[in-house]
């Protein structure tokens, strides 16, 4: 059988055309063997195709050989209408094909001649890839993202589409590839990204997370000379949730005064929380802004307090609490967009200190506690 170059005799639109839903028509016997390509279509799209008679053809019948629920339906006699729905797993379906018999004036005996048709479409979908893997090992095609996280958008197959986003920034607005950046300030918990191609729209919804909290992982206990009443640790700040990456934001702590002081610290006022990123004991002029990191765990915090040699145990029981004392720093923590430096308050993180009668000193931060016994 030789391969014909096919021509569509007529491709007419329905009375009120709906974009992307025109009905091509082939005429038998001008088009005995045809193969029609509908091009890109979305899941849930419908395809329609008509098969009619060329002049001189006296009768026409047709059917679809299709054993499954997916694929083509239609046929009958006279003007044949075929229809098909594109399912989400279109690439895996067995499409079915249509065929039939026809007769024409003056045809002799023998079996009626056959015609055969095939039609196909391309399932068009958005493919999205986050810049970073999520720390919990999730794949980069996840639909949960952190604030300011970047996602590369493409279509499959590759098409030059128009992109839009219900929130966040997207660039370029047209083309085969675009980058969507999740918003830093959320106007809602989700964002819908839409790609439009020849009047057809495909969307994908992302759920966007602000940091929900910080878990700590103690890396190191700080050493102090004997005779000093002090405690400290280096702790890794792990931003939650781990199902998204906060690689698009920085974080920093601000100054605060002590609060909730009891016992020893109600008599001897504790120091303020100062920003001392270089650990030289001096108050830094600027806050230490650090990248949260693609793994949400790039910030290492050094948390400590030292009474030094000026105060020595025992710390008397002055208020009936058993001696010692306690206080908190409620440290205002901010986050910033890495690119724009847009800034907002995140949480007041409590850094708690407890001093015991015998000079043992505890510090707690990000749910991690360090204890140091006093050594004369």
């Amino acid at each position, binding site marked *: 059988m*030789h*391969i014909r170059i096919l021509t569509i005799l007529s491709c007419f639109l329905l009375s009120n055309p709906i974009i992307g839903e025109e009905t091509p028509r082939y005429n038998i016997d001008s088009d005995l063997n045809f193969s029609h390509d509908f091009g890109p279509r979305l*899941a849930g*799209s419908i395809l329609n195709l008509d098969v009619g008679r060329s002049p001189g053809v006296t009768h026409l019948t047709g059917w679809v050989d299709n054993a*499954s*629920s997916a694929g083509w339906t239609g046929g009958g006699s006279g003007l044949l209408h075929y*229809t098909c729905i594109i399912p989400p797993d279109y690439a*895996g379906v*067995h499409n*079915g094909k249509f065929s039939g018999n026809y007769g024409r004036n003056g045809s002799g005996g023998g079996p009626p001649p056959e015609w055969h048709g095939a039609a196909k479409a391309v399932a068009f979908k958005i493919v999205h890839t986050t810049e970073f893997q999520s720390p919990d090992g999730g794949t980069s095609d996840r639909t949960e993202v952190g604030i300011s996280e970047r996602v590369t958008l493409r279509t499959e197959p590759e098409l030059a589409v128009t992109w839009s986003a219900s929130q966040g920034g997207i660039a370029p607005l047209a083309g085969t590839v675009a980058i969507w950046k999740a918003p830093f300030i959320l106007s809602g918990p989700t964002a819908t990204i839409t790609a439009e191609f020849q009047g057809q729209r495909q969307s994908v919804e992302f759920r966007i997370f602000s940091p929900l909290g910080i878990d700590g992982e103690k890396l190191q206990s700080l050493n102090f000379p004997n005779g000093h009443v002090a405690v400290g640790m280096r702790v890794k700040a792990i931003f939650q949730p781990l199902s998204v990456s906060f690689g698009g934001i920085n974080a920093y702590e601000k100054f605060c005064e002590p609060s909730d002081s009891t016992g020893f610290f109600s008599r001897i006022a504790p120091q303020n929380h100062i920003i001392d990123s270089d650990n030289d004991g001096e108050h830094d002029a600027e806050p230490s802004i650090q990248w949260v990191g693609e793994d949400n765990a790039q910030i290492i915090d050094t948390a400590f307090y030292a009474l030094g040699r000026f105060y020595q145990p025992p710390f008397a029981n002055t208020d009936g609490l058993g001696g010692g004392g306690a206080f908190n720093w409620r440290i205002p923590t901010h986050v910033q967009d890495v690119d724009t430096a847009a800034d907002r308050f995140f949480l007041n993180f409590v850094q708690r200190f407890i001093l015991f009668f015998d000079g043992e000193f505890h510090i707690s931060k990000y749910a991690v506690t360090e204890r140091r016994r006093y050594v004369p």
Partner: protein
Amino acid sequence: MRSVRGWGNVEWFRPDPSHIYNRSTCPWHTEYLTLLSHAHRSLCYFLHGKVEDAIIDLDAIAKIDAADAVLTQANQPSNYLRLRDGYRSGRLYATKEELRLFRGKQMTKLAQAELLFEMERWEDAIAAYDRVADTSMGGLSLNAKAYLDFARASALVFAGKKDLALKFTAGFSGSNPDYINAPSYWRAQFLVANLDRENESSILVAAYQACEIQSGKADFAVKIGQIYFSVRDLPAALKWFAIVQKHTPPHDYRHQAATRYLRLIDHL
């Protein structure tokens, strides 16, 4: 190894018993054997639960079979995509539940037939399903027999041999079908209907009424609506697409398709 027929479908090479095929007589013979080897090894990986290894072996299809690569590239139904997506969801043409009906050697034989089916090598698939039946039909459960009959009938329909398919659908049709409790029963109703053109819609309506699975009901309603739409019985089509909307949430592709049909009917 595959040739494009005049009407756009691609047909697999079928050896002629009177010819000798080797690398001297046939320029693509070595590649053909390579493709088959990889495809079979991918199937072994799949059966052992090593899905990603199985998919790596499928790359041979994309590399060697140029016709399939064109379809894959365009995200159109292709052997590669069909097998890849099937592996990932734990199925072949048989669903997960249907695959579980087979054990041991029966399973091995069935999987070979399924591979051929998914690669649309209909004649080879029919022969392979027949081998499963010939060697182990006595040891198969009723539900496994039901699937085997369904798969054979499906392959015969896709191969255009509808008359031969009828004897394999007997257990799925009639007033008291043998396979009524088989996992394959509901999907087989589409096949039974396709083979009985005069009663196609009434068979599907009966299936819709009897089926208690919501998603299955929606599938039947869609197909019935499509049949009425294609014969331009628009009031009936309208009724069934409205039913589809009731059975499916708005984000479901069937709901969206029904909405499109209803909009189209408004314009006809």
